[in-house]
């Protein structure tokens, strides 16, 4: 009974309205993410990026509309179904959210030990495998406090991937990383997508990383309380009609010239952010 299209749609959001109490943050947001896609949710500060993420991972319930993740209606699903869904996706939090009292290896092994019946020997090898995939082999016995910010993120990613999720969420993956590390993480995201076909959803405002890895994006606006642009970021950058979208993609004309932006623009410092 499953429709053919449902098989290749990982996330479907239709008519989502999100609010905190009486404050409405998003109205009537609809978009969908295909399987195996690297999808970015862009937007300025306070535009509701994190709100959408919270709705996608079931930490917030929509005021109206429906959120379907991996064919499960997040808003309507009973708790046991949600729990099953949660083991099918991983979330990389902004600062890694590693458990400080456990070593890196214990952190990565935790979901494996708690949520599966795999023998200990298998868990140990799996932990090593996951750490190897993120380039942290040999770091099993270090504590999160002993890691740098970039290593903590990668360890968090290894933990998010512990259960071979179909879907990975990244909250601000490049925040707090230097350009080299951020690029490394971008490459890792694409590599993992290519190797595992994992659907990747990035919540970010790092344009460089979006241009490098994202297949499709949506741009949220705080004023419009919803989506103001959707599609291939490189296309949007070139042909956006709305001033708001153009400003975002050109950093108000300050962004270093890439395709389609006149280089003279970047040398002009705008006044009053116009």
């Amino acid at each position, binding site marked *: 009974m499953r429709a053919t299209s449902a098989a290749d749609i990982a996330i479907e959001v239709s008519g989502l309205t999100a609010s905190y109490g009486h404050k409405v943050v998003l109205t009537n947001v609809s978009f969908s993410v295909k399987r195996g896609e690297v999808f970015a949710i862009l937007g300025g500060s306070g535009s509701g990026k994190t709100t959408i993420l919270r709705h996608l991972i079931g930490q917030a319930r929509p005021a109206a509309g429906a959120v379907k993740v991996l064919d499960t209606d997040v808003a309507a699903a009973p708790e046991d179904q949600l729990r099953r869904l949660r083991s099918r996706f991983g979330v990389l939090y902004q600062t890694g959210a590693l458990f400080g*009292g456990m070593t890196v290896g214990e952190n990565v092994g935790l979901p494996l030990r708690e949520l599966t019946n*795999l023998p200990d020997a298998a868990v140990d*090898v799996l932990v*090593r*495998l996951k750490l*190897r995939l993120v380039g942290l082999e040999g770091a099993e016995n270090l504590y999160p406090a002993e890691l740098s910010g970039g290593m903590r993120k990668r360890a968090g990613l290894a933990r998010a991937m512990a*259960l*071979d999720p179909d879907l990975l969420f990244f909250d601000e993956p490049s925040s707090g990383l230097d350009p080299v590390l951020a690029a490394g993480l971008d490459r890792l995201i694409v590599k993992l997508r290519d*190797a595992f076909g994992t659907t990747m959803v990035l919540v970010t405002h790092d344009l460089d990383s979006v241009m490098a890895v994202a297949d499709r994006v949506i741009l949220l606006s705080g004023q419009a309380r919803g989506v103001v642009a959707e599609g291939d970021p490189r296309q949007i950058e070139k042909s956006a009609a709305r001033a708001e979208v153009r400003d975002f993609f050109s950093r108000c004309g300050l962004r270093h010239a890439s395709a389609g932006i006149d280089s003279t623009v970047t040398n002009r410092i705008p006044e009053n952010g116009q």
Partner: protein
Amino acid sequence: MKPFQIQDDADALRILFGPRFVRTDTAAFWDEIDDSVRGTSRERVELDFTACTRYDSSTVVLAAALRTQCEQRGISCELHTPSGNFDELLSAASAQPPDLRTRTTAPASDRRYPTRIGDAAVRLAESVYRALVFTGESAAALAEVLRHPGRTRWGETWRILQGAGADALPIVALICFLMGVIMAFQAAVQLHTFGADIYVADLVALSIVRELGPLMTAIICAGRSGAGFAAELGAMKVGEEVDAMVTMGLDVQRFLVTPKILALLAALPCLTVLGNLIAILGGMLISATVLGLPCAVYWNETVAALGYSDFFGGLAKSFVFAALIAGIGCYRGLEVGTDAQDVGRKTTSAVVTGIFFIILADAGFSVLYHVMGI
């Protein structure tokens, strides 16, 4: 039907994996497959994953483990892998990180006894030194309050006073009341045999006001406010809020510690006086009901038994206890490092250390009052 088949042929042990072999299957059949390979007497093992299109990293780990086992026993192992990233994962799972062993053991420090005793002594000296510095800083900050009262954060102090004082009243009242009841009961049974019923009032009044009232109230406050202060400051340390304050040039003592000490210095004596009164009322209730002593008689006896020195001697203790609870709570809170577990450890330690020092100070007071003849 099992998601795999074992064929024990004459030339080789063949394990054929089905189209779907994922984590749950790996967990369920790990031992069975492992045992079959372990128990085989064949020269060759063939692991056939070619049909397996739905696999995950646990499947790969199983394959790697089986292959390693064969290699260790000198059996030849043939692995047929499916298309996809199986091979890539397999090489990642099989590779032994070269520096794993060296890093598994934490920096091997010298664990001989003389070294450990020395280390412990140095640590002890350091912690005593830090505690002394903290005490000095706190005292200086309190002196600063007297010199420049306007610079103290009275709003913050008031907020803490609410939490540490008014909000603590119900539990302090309940416990002190029960303490008065218990003491009166115990005393009534003993004194009644001598016909000295009236002295229940003296006994309850003196032991509560001089000793137990201040002590119990302080212990309750150490559990409530001392733990609260430590956890609050600890969470601020973890969130780098304390660091932010220091870099802004704000004095942590003046900003965070002094208001707490001031608030508790005001709250604890008030709680103690109220607790004393309620404990005496508890004693009165028992005397009236069990011994049939009129309340007025009990009250007059209490007033006659208590001297000013008893009352103020008890009150003086509560000021010292207040400074100890708030100081130790803040000190432990500021000791917190960077993780959440540390907050729990230091909060526990704040209560334990706090109660220890309260009892120690109380013993000191007993000796002091004895010498002074109070």
